[in-house]
Each structure stands twice: as C-alpha cells, then as structure tokens.
C-alpha cells in the first residue's frame, strides 16, 4: 500500500518546496464548516492535521484553545471527528490526514478501539501531545502495526541522546517544535537558529521527513522553506476567529490565507 504521508513529502520535494501542513480543529466552528474548510484548503495543502479538541489543553496557546472550546461548545464528539475525516476522505482520498490531540481522549476511547477507528475512517497518522517518548513506545507500535504513522515530537530542549533514540523509534515523519512555547507563540528565535537545530536532526537520519511547527505565520514561513515540511496552525485558527467576529465566511477567508502561505513557499 502506498504511504500517503511519504508520498506527500516526495511530491513536494520534486517541486523543490517544503510540504505545507495545516492544523485545524475538527468542528471549528461547526462540523459542517470545518469539513468545508478542509475541502477548500486541500488544494494548497500537502498534509492536513486535524485536532480533536480537549478542554484541558496543556500545550496550546490562546488561538487553538479558542478553536477547541468553540468546537466543544457546539457539541463536538469524538465520533464526529472520525465522521469528518471519513467525509473528507470520500472526496479527497489521496490527501493524508494526521489526527492530533491529548492522550486522555484516546485513553477513554481505548487505545485499540481508537486505532481501529482511525484506520476505518482513513486517518494516516497520529500526534499525541502529552505522550512523550519512551512512554509512547507501546502505543506507537500498535499504530505502526495498523499502518498508522505515530509522529514523534522533538523540541529545542531534547538532548542529543534523546534525539537519536526518538528518531530511531520514529515512523514516517517527525515534528520539530521550533521554540520553547505553546502553539501560536510569537517566534522568539531566529529562523536561522531554528534551521540550525533542524539540520542537526536531519543529520542524525537524513531519510526521515522532518517538519517544523509552532509560531509559523505568513511573515515567517518563507525563511524556513528549506525544511521538509512546515506546519501552520494558530494562524489559521486565528483567521477563523477573526472571520466569525467580522461575520464573514471563514471558509473563503481561511482558503485565502492558506493560498498565500503556499504561495510564499512555492
């Protein structure tokens, strides 16, 4: 079977640009709208990260928190998240989808059930924010056995020894957190410094696809274009909030933002 995540990186590389990954929260601001947003932006996006919202997020900044609370307030359930992925995949079958969230929701669903449901809905990868290595070894193995990529996270505080071990245990993609921050923080280190750290990671295993996330906006994305992939999340959530506040359609506005992001790295 073709690995869609690897394929997405390969396609982007052929076009000499980084893969563009977007993060949106399932059900923000409604189930219908979040699906429409996904469908609309997918022409410019290589991999869609979809958040399953939790009401006690310990690593998310204000923008993503707002999106998550909005989705939950509208009654979003985990079954809806899977339904959104399923519906999205009906029309965009080749677009890889990575679910991202906090461990308690997987724990309550049951690890095996959760993975099974991911599989049947068409999820290609998983990011679990608060399940670090080596605690995640068992779960990551389970994911792999069902051909779901478990995405390991790395941060500027990760020691060299840890980097090596984590990369060794990683699957198709690794995620480098650009700085010490929750999501959506202002970029407080220079893109040069970030790429410096990124290159150290690539040196350990050049074959692994490594994306950079946290603090990436229209302003900063071009400077990081030498990476394998770049993730934009809070800037998109912020645009949804802004659109709703101005009584505008978030679908068209978010699509414009994503098109611009893509333009900057193409």
């Amino acid at each position: 079977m073709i690995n869609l995540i690897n394929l997405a990186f390969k396609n982007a590389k052929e076009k000499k640009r980084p893969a563009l990954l977007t993060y949106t929260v399932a059900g923000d601001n409604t189930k219908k709208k979040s699906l429409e947003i996904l469908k609309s932006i997918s022409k410019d996006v290589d991999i869609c990260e979809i958040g399953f919202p939790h009401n006690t997020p310990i690593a998310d900044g204000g923008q993503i928190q707002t999106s998550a609370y909005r989705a939950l307030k509208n009654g979003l359930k985990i079954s809806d998240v899977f339904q959104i992925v399923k519906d999205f995949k009906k029309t965009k079958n080749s677009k890889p989808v990575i679910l991202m969230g906090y461990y308690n929701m997987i724990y309550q669903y049951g690890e095996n059930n959760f993975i099974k449901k991911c599989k049947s809905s068409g999820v290609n990868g998983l990011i679990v924010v608060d399940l670090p290595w080596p605690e995640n070894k068992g779960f990551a193995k389970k994911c792999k056995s069902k051909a779901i990529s478990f995405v390991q996270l790395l941060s500027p505080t990760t020691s060299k020894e840890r980097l090596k071990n984590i990369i060794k245990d990683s699957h198709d993609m690794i995620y480098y957190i650009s700085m010490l921050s929750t999501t959506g923080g202002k970029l407080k280190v220079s893109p040069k410094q970030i790429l410096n750290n990124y290159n150290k990671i690539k040196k350990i295993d050049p074959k692994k696809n490594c994306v950079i996330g946290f603090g990436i906006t229209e302003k900063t994305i071009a400077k990081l274009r030498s990476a394998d992939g770049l993730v934009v999340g809070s800037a998109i959530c912020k645009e949804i909030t802004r659109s709703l506040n101005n009584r505008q359609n978030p679908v068209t506005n978010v699509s414009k933002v994503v098109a611009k992001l893509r333009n900057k790295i193409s």
Partner: protein
Amino acid sequence: MMKIKKNIPLIDQHDKFGFWGGKFGGSYIPETLKKPVDDLTKEFSELRKNRSFIKKRDFYFNNYIGSPTRFIKLENLSKHLGGAQIWAKVVSDANGGAHKIYNATVHALLCKSMGKKYIVGDTGAGYAGKMLSMAAKKFGLKCKIFMGAKDIKRQKPNCDAMKKNGAEIIPVTTGSQTLVDAVSECMRYWVSNCDTTHMCVGSTVGPNIFVKICGWSTAQISRELKKQIKIQFKKIPKKIKLINCVGGGSSAYGFWSEFIDFPKSQIELIGVEAGGPKNSKLHAAPLSRGAKLGVLHGAASYVCQNNEGQINETESISAGLDYPGVSPIHCFLKDTKRARYTYATDEDALNAYKIVTKYEKLNPSLEPSHAFAEAIRIAPRLNNDTVIIVNSCGDAKKDRDILKKRLGKRI
C-alpha cells in the same frame, strides 16, 4: 494485586515510568518539558540525600514556618458530641496560615539551588499562591501566580497578601475559571519559559516529580504529629482516626505519611472530598463518587470527566478542594484500601464550621471544615477510647467574605 510496601515512603513506591500501583501517576508531558522535568528529578533526588540541604530545610521549617504546629484536644467539642475524643493538629499555625508553606518553601529552595531566578505556581484557595509569594520574597525570587478569575473574586484576602509580597497574579479566564484552569495555564507558561523559570505545582498532583516533592515537603506534618502523640499518650493509642480533607491531597498525604505502615485497625485514614452544594450534580469528589481513571495535568488519576475524556466542571464552596482530579497517591491508597474516602457537602462543611467555632477557639477554613464535618458525623457513635485527629490545615481568614454571606458571621 496492588500492594503497599512497608518501610518505604509512599512517594517512592512507583515504577520506572512513575506509576504507583502500575497505573496511577506517570508523566504525561509535552516533549518540551521532558528536560526540565528530568533536571528537576535529578536535582531533587540528589538534594534529598544531601545532609546540608536537609539541614537547611529543617532550619527554615523550624525558624521560618514555625514547626512544630500545635496538637490540641478539643475538649468542648468532644464533650458536646459525647463519643470519641476529638483532637486537632493545628497546621494553620504555620507561617502564612496553612500547610502550603511546606511545599512552597522546598520549591523555593530547589529553585535557588538550580540557579533559576523566576518561580511560577498555581493556586485555588490562594494559599498555595500566597505561600509561594512569601517564600519567593524570602529567597529573593521573582514570582508569578496563576489563579482562576472566579477564585480571585472569592479569595480576596489571599490575593491581597500575594500582591503585598510582590508577586504578580495572572487571572485565568478560560474554562470554569478555577483551579483546574489555573494549573493548565501555569503549565503552559512553563512550557514557554522552562529555561529560566521553575514551576511549583501547588499540591501532590501533576507529573510524578511534583507529587514527590510536595509529599516529601508536607510529610513534616506527620513527623511532628507522631512525636506529639507519643508525648501525649505515652504510646500510640489503639484506635486512632486521622481525618483530612482531600482536594489535590497534599495535606492529607503529609498528615498520614508516617502512619501508613500501621494496621488499618489501629490507625484509620479518612479522606474527605468536596461534595459540592447539596442539590447540585457537580462536585469535586473523584475518589468517593466513583470517577473513572483519566489523564489530567500530566498524571493518571481518578478524574471527574465525561465519557469522551473531557474534564468536568466542578463545584465546591471551598476553592482549595474545587479540583476535578486528585493525587495518584490517594488513588493508590484507595485501591489498596489503606485509606477510606468520603465527601461532605458545602452545607455539611458550613455547619461543621459553625459547630467547631462555637465550641472551640479554632478557626478552620472551609477546606478542613469538610474534615470536621466527617469527625462530627462519626464521633458520637464511637467510644471515648477512640482518638479522632483532624488536620486543621488552613485558617478561615481567607473565607471571611463567603462565611459572612452564608452564615452572616463576621470573623
């Protein structure tokens, strides 16, 4: 089967991943926090074996916190209830008026020894925040306290104290605007600033190392109590009941730690959670009202949550107990059946406060008033040879606005 080992402090009875009983605790943290948590773990494990650090700790416990706190018989209350003898360990004698000063002092010492100049912490009732601000001032650290906007309103006296100590209070306006949100926001702040800043978790909750540090700090309470009991009774009496309120569970662990190895038939441990308003569906009693195991703030414990794993809102008159999770150590004590957990409603606690203050020169805050409610409930049915000891772990000064409103009482 899950079992408690003897002669090893409970805080050290976890596996290599930090789980008590194989399933409570752990460290469910973002990758960014792995290193600061590992650094802290290493620092703490070295310092707790270091004689000069212990000496320093004891110096501040004695000369700054004011150990030992009193152990007194509540003669009038015992007579009024006409059953068991009721005693109190008056931990609210401690500098600042509550047990939170032990953990705050130790964290400030750790922060200093790690060479960090900034310290942040969460607070519910405001005591953890007040004490951390005191300790920060004492040791020359810059301090930020995260506190739910709802709690800032209802615990004003403690907020005033924090400001006076030079701490910055960061109001948290997300979610239910109480302790649970304050802890989340504090952890988020730490994620962004862990290179320069030390985080103090205000109770025996959070990632494994914070449970350990807090438990190690509050254990001072039971070390004192054990000595005091021996002096008072010549030997440890045959029937003792140690009653303590449980929010996160730091004062209860500290009150019990020296007595866990005793047989249950001799020393019963009773934890009292916040049952919330009498007719409300909301409560903050995950242990006594059968909450499911879940992951909150970096640890697995029984958590008030829905089927999906979203954390429930809680409700209690006592800000210090108003928390959906509980220490993994208490989950372990519950499942090994070493401790018994029950709850008292807001009304029970208010009523207990009224009774205690009517008969005794003691002014327990709403948190220990929950414990007194259980003592008052069971004492009349017991004989005079049973010794009930309640940890009066906080002073009611901070509750003056609530008490005035609910009881029309000026304190």
